[in-house]
């Protein structure tokens, strides 16, 4: 905690509580956006999921609120960590991450045909949610170690392999959505780390060629690389249908829900939600619930909160006193922005249905806690850069 010390000496007049909570060094706007989003989530669930579970009308609300409180505590705790020391644990973190993803193959609980969960005595845990953050921390560390050495194509390839291994494992679970998020995180960190333009362009081009080639070659010889439902979901938004099990039906219902919200929302007349036309109302399609119930006002407010979050995340990158922090922050911004944009895009019928949740808004303990963990890291980077800048003045 070497780096955190200066704040004690510089602001002795601050109350003990603020010091313990490290609030002095947190980014208040980032904090506001995070708490605003989780609060909006609880509010939405409270007003729209009363009839979901007959025996316990507050089932989702109570749990999401609890996850929110736990998450905020976790975030504040993490913000006090000297994140730079995580570098030293990079091999352990990376091994733990890969191991936990592999672990679900062995003992994971199948949810709708795919293994994503580890069952604990009191709760289930989805390792891939934690993996997103751990990938940021460990990949940034691996890159950081290489920074002082000559940076050639072999380095790029090595880092690429390190970055894409967890994604590959997650694809096999199979969890298409999380896998894509992990790829986005890895590529963004590589991009931010400053690898040569040519390398980056080559990676992107190779990736596109590979994905397309594998898919086409697979179809040609009759091998399916995507599961049937994954392919359906990815292509469904091109051809709408009436089958409620069908992805394009979901998108159609989602668009009707959002569109019907108009400017101020339909409140308790939100029939798309209330009459269950909308699928996955508390998770993947919660944005459509917001759009219908609170209209453009509510839906745009959520976007605005995310905009604040991303802006502060990018700003953390700029003010970070450590290049390690820059790369972690880059990965975290990529992780949050990618999930938010893809999920909202899916709700709006702009993007295929991939099963990516909306950070802090979608119901789910693993997702909420994983996101707050990431936000805690952002705050830690922010706090240390402030401490540094105080010292330098």
């Amino acid at each position: 905690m070497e780096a955190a010390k200066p704040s004690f000496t510089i602001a002795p007049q601050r109350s003990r509580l603020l010091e313990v909570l490290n609030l002095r060094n947190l980014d208040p706007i980032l904090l506001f956006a995070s708490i605003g989003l989780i609060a909006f989530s609880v509010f939405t669930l409270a007003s729209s999921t009363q009839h979901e579970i007959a025996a316990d009308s507050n089932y989702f609300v109570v749990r999401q609120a609890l996850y929110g409180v736990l998450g905020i505590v976790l975030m504040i705790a993490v913000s006090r960590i000297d994140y730079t020391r995580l570098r030293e644990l990079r091999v352990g973190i990376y091994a733990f991450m890969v191991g936990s993803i592999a672990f679900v193959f062995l003992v994971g609980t199948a949810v709708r045909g795919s293994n994503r969960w580890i069952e604990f005595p009191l709760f289930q845990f989805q390792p891939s949610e934690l993996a997103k953050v751990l990938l940021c921390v460990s990949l940034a560390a691996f890159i950081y170690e290489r920074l002082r050495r000559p940076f050639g194509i072999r380095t790029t390839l090595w880092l690429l392999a390190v970055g894409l291994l967890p994604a590959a494992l997650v694809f096999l679970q199979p969890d298409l959505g999380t896998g894509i998020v992990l790829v986005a995180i890895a590529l963004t960190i590589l991009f931010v780390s400053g690898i040569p333009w040519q390398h980056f362009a080559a990676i992107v081009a190779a990736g596109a060629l590979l994905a397309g080639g594998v898919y086409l070659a697979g179809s040609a010889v009759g091998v399916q690389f995507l599961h049937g439902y994954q392919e359906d979901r990815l292509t469904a938004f091109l051809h709408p249908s009436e089958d409620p099990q069908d992805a394009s039906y979901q998108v159609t219902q989602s668009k009707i829900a959002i569109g019907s919200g108009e400017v101020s929302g339909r409140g308790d007349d939100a029939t798309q939600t209330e009459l269950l036309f909308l699928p996955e109302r508390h998770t993947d399609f919660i944005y459509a619930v917001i759009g219908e119930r609170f209209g453009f006002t509510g839906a745009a407010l959520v976007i605005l909160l995310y905009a604040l979050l991303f802006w502060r995340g990018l700003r953390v990158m700029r003010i970070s006193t450590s290049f390690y922090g820059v790369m972690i922050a880059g990965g975290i911004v990529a992780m949050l922005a990618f999930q938010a944009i893809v999920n909202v895009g899916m709700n709006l019928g702009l993007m295929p249905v991939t099963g990516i949740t909306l950070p802090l808004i979608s119901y789910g303990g693993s997702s909420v806690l994983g996101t707050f963990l990431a936000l805690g890291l952002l705050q830690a980077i922010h706090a240390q850069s402030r401490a540094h800048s105080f010292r330098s003045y």
Partner: protein
Amino acid sequence: MYLLDRPEDIPPRLTNRLNLRIAILGAVVVAAIATVLLRLWSLQILDGQHYRAMAKDHGILDVRVHPPRGEILDRSGRVLVENRTVMTLQLRPSDLPSDKSERRRELAKLGDLLGLSQPEIHQRVRATPQYAGYPVVLKQGLDRRLLFYFLENKESFPGVSVDRTYVRRYPDGSLAAHVLGQVGQISPHQLTRPQYKTLRPGDVIGQAGVEYTYDKFLRGTAGAERIQVDALGRPRGTLGHRPPQAGDNLRLTLDSGVQETGETALRDKGLPGAFVAMNVHTGAILGMGSYPTFDPSFYTRPHTKAQYDAFGNQPGDPLVDRADQGGYPTGSAFKPITATAALQDGLITPSTIFDDTGSLDIGGLVVHNAGGAANGPIDMSTALQVSSDVYFFNLGLHASASGNGGQIQDWAFKYGLGRKPQIDVPDATAGLIPTPAWRNRVFHSHKNPYIDRPWNQGDNVNLAVGQGDVMVTPLQLARAYAALANGGALVRPHVGGSIVNIRGQTVRKIHPAPQRHLRISSETRNVILEGLHRAADEPGGTSYAVMGSFPIPVAGKTGTAERQGQEDQSWYSVIAPYPNPQIVVTVTVERGGFGAETAAPMARAILERYFNQHGGGVDTAAAHAAGPG
């Protein structure tokens, strides 16, 4: 190449390269957020109303509420057809689970509960027209146990609904079954007709009898219930309700007593036949029945197509209404028509005498009276009394010899024979009055093996006594006798009396005007009626044995028609009281033999019942009908 010189110790120099890359990352995020916001704007602000309308239409189900159908009553208000409510289990095959094994499981469960085998269910589904969500009735009259089971477990039976439906009930069993007809689901073909344009698949309409003719009154108006349903089709409350309007009641002209007497007489005889009892002035039918008959409640239960077909193809054709669809040669019962033609067209006068020697030579072919009797010199009245064939053969010859030779046919047509009788029961047949043109055409077409030669004089001689190709229904003959009795009005027979709404007010009276008035002089009428009266009331008359003892004077004519390949057709047509008649009764019995033997006693029983109920029966209508012509 080095990315940084001393990464640990120095704060990252915001080199141009890092600045640029953070800026690019930021630009991507900004662009994405802008895209999302634009899309949100487009969906919610620009197209919001469109989507709001879609959402509001979503999950709204308009359920048709069937009205109770009007009741059908006899002339005194006795209920002949009423309604019974039953809980009906219906299946809409289009709403069954799309997954094959789920569908099979649901149908298996249904079969267990209803006691239906899988083939039976499939048969029923196939037997129902499949389009636009046509419901298949699987079970009518669910008991309480099953009813509550299905209501409680609605969600595990997608496509199944339990509804309160109205089913026809016939308190008197098969009484007047042919006249009443039956109801059934409207067919896809019927839906395209203009008179059914407000109806929907699954609605019930009259398919035969007066149920068909007076359907628009009986049917009522369907109500509607607007129900909000969720994505799984579960009702979530009622948004609106328009109650159905019950159909009006139909009061018939039928007299249950007369109807029952006629049907009983036919049933006791056990031979196929029919009767018609009709008011001679108004055409109001008092009784009209056909034997064998059927149980109309068959149509209130769900059946497979094979069962329907089997029901329609029973031996003796019970679904055929012989009273208005059974065309037979009438034998001597035709003679009043021949007599009218001869007298009105001046072939003879009432006092013209023919010497009945018992036989007549027509161009080499000798024809005889039935039984070979010789009646000596007789006039028209006596010829009718004793039913002299020779006298009428002569008229047939005269008709043939005088110019166009079509007098008998012309008068038969005027009397409504060979033409549709314009009754308010559907599908009455026209019968056949043979003409030279008709016979020659059929002969030259070689389509009918029985028509094996062109028309000749013998055909007219045959027609004069109701033999040969002639085909007349009991209804047509009764109508012709009524025209003779009432002085020439060719009434429109009708069983519908009035339409009465549920508050008991008469909204429409049914008394169709006569189709036309025949020019029959009172002399002609009186001569013929006198002959018929003497046939019934004077010794030597053909029906004296049966009607001679009847307390009310009548005028009746027997008919005994030869038919190819079977025993004679027995006819009796009688009008009463003589000479101011109110009622005509016509009875025919297939293979019944002599008219006086089989048909006449049945007619007498019907008249007895009629006059017992009407207290000796001379009412004002009869008194004022005395003087026409």
